[in-house]
């Protein structure tokens, strides 16, 4: 029970990160190497916004993180990514690497590299067999992740904008010729991706802590996305589950020291057998 709960919660954190990476890749063919930094900065913004009114306010924290996601998404797309349309794909990758460095520096400058924890709903809510417990935050994190993926599914499947999004992902030029506002769709993809990353950062800050070192969770998200397939949301969840399970089993059955290395080993295996990931499409891979 304890084992299942831990793997599910870890899966949620990684799945949110992987989903953002997949959305950005599907929409604009960008592999975002700054996703961990965006997640952790989102967590920091959540924390700081909550304190803004002098008294800790959860609503203010949520509003702050949402505002950060929207503003950051628009700024990144309009000032950087929009200009890179037509450029080789690695240019955008390099830009995201640079963005990651800038965001990490922002943590140093704005938050003075302070280690912060997000102590919302940390009290035990559910006792498990063997004395372990789940906090309200743990339960909420699972529910929020389910809600996020359900919302994405409904959005892509049943809304006009979702259809436009899928069209843009399929063929941006054709979508543009059919009257789709491609810039709006691509900006939206950044906003959604950063929103998911921020949520993941908040959940991470609740389970562990936020710091400049925490940005490495982006690697777990990227590994999950690559294992699942860079263009598959279903793959993002599957990849996240596989990475979380591999980490957990390594800690418990092999050696805790190897727990961060094993997901990468897994990635190497998947990439050598099925380079487009477990749920990715070969065509997408060939395009890259």
């Amino acid at each position, binding site marked *: 029970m*304890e*084992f299942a709960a*831990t793997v599910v*919660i*870890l899966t949620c*954190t990684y799945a949110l990160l992987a989903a953002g990476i997949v959305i950005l890749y599907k929409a604009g063919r960008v592999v975002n190497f700054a996703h961990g930094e965006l997640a952790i900065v989102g967590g920091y913004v959540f924390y700081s916004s909550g304190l803004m009114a002098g008294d800790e306010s959860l609503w203010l924290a949520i509003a702050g993180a949402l505002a950060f996601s929207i503003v950051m998404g628009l700024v990144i797309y309009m000032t950087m990514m929009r200009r890179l349309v037509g450029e080789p794909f690695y240019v955008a990758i390099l830009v995201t690497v640079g963005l990651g460095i800038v965001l990490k520096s922002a943590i*140093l400058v704005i938050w*003075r*590299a*302070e*280690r912060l*924890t997000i*102590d919302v709903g*940390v*009290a*035990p809510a559910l006792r498990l067999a*063997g*004395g*372990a*417990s*789940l*906090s309200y935050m743990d339960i909420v994190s699972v529910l929020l992740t389910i809600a996020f993926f359900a919302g994405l599914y409904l959005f892509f499947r049943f809304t006009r904008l979702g259809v436009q999004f899928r069209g843009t992902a399929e063929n941006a030029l054709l979508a543009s010729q059919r009257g789709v506002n491609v810039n709006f769709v691509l900006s939206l993809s950044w906003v959604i991706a950063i929103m998911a990353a921020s949520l993941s950062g908040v959940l*991470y800050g609740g*389970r*562990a*802590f936020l*710091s*400049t*070192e925490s940005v*490495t*969770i982006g690697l*777990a998200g990227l590994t999950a996305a690559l294992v699942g397939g860079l263009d598959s949301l279903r793959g993002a969840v599957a990849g996240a589950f596989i990475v979380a399970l591999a*980490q*957990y089993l390594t*800690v*418990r059955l092999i050696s*805790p*020291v*190897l*727990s*961060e*290395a094993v997901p990468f080993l897994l990635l190497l295996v998947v990439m050598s057998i099925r380079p487009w990931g477990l749920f990715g499409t070969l065509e997408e891979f060939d395009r890259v």
Partner: protein
Amino acid sequence: MKRLVLRSLFTALVLAACALSANLASAQNSYVIGYITDLSGPLADSYTPTWEGFELYIKALNDRGGIGGKKIDVVLDDDGLKADRAVAAAKKQVERDNVIGIFGLSLSSTQGPVYVEMRKAGVPVVTTFSGILDALPPAKPFSYSAGVVFEVAGEAIGELIKNIKPNGKVVGMTFDSVGGRAAISHNKRMVESLGYTWDEVIFPVTTSDFTPFAQAAVEKKPDIVVGHYGSGQNLGVIPALRRSGYTGPYVVASYGVTEDTVRQAAQRAGNDQNVYYVTRYSTVYDSNPAVAEVAAAQKKYGTSKPFSSMHLTGWALGRFVESALKACGWPCSREKLDNVIQTLKVDVSGLTGGPIEMSPQDHYGPSYWRLYVWNESAKKMEPKGDWLKKTALKFPVQ
């Protein structure tokens, strides 16, 4: 002819400027010392308060008129927790700033290279908070520590846990680092020699979630868990252990861990009463004149970080510097300062259990360690037992 006059005039001006700068250097009217630490890297949170404590002491000392009317100028450099930056800063301080000694330093990994370079330059280096084996007997020249040597800390913690439980199983947790493994190795041998059984969980430095590691520790059925790492890991591990069903004693080894971190961790773990803290220097909750003096200075000059035991550690190093410079006299050279430090005994009563005392063979000296327990209802730490004096390592370094 005119050109010759101008050229002579120019040469004379250059020579005059050189002579003036030489005079300025020799007429330096203050003690110039260097301080290097991590102010922007991953452990800035732990090292900044130590620097601030040191700075408080020097400010107060200068306001009192310095030493024999000479002020102390501190050249501060940030190593960002990188060894190459620390070495570059040390060389710069020696060659350009003309410092007579270097103090502070950050993680053990940055100290080794600085010690080596400064040995070549003949500059005494006194570290605080983290310390490495170079300072222990047989000590290497110019390498001193007034802080925490992990091997010593591991043994001290091993001895102090008898104040918690006289026997049982101890599970040590650390992350995969040189310092962590050193501490855990000596902790293990000490507790085993005292009749406890031992097991350990070592996890990677970059860890996404502490829960699986905490569960691995809980599975070993510990009676006491000891955490050998910094602030962030404690914030993650303590709640994770409690979530995993472990309610027994947890010992925080104070490697830059502040009282505020313990408070936060205890709060996150559901107002935990069973959290202990082992430190070389006092906590801010100790009621004695030495701590009150630092608190007053903190109020007067201000600090960016919450007042903590790390400030007391930095303050103790400040007192060490004052004693060393006083004994060195004026003018004080690097060689003279090194000679003085080799037999220095500094009274830091109230800040730790006894004096900081160096000898030519032992550049660390006896150190004093104390166990505290977090009292959640009083929101403070309370000492559990007296100071433990550690004079030498009981077990050889592996």
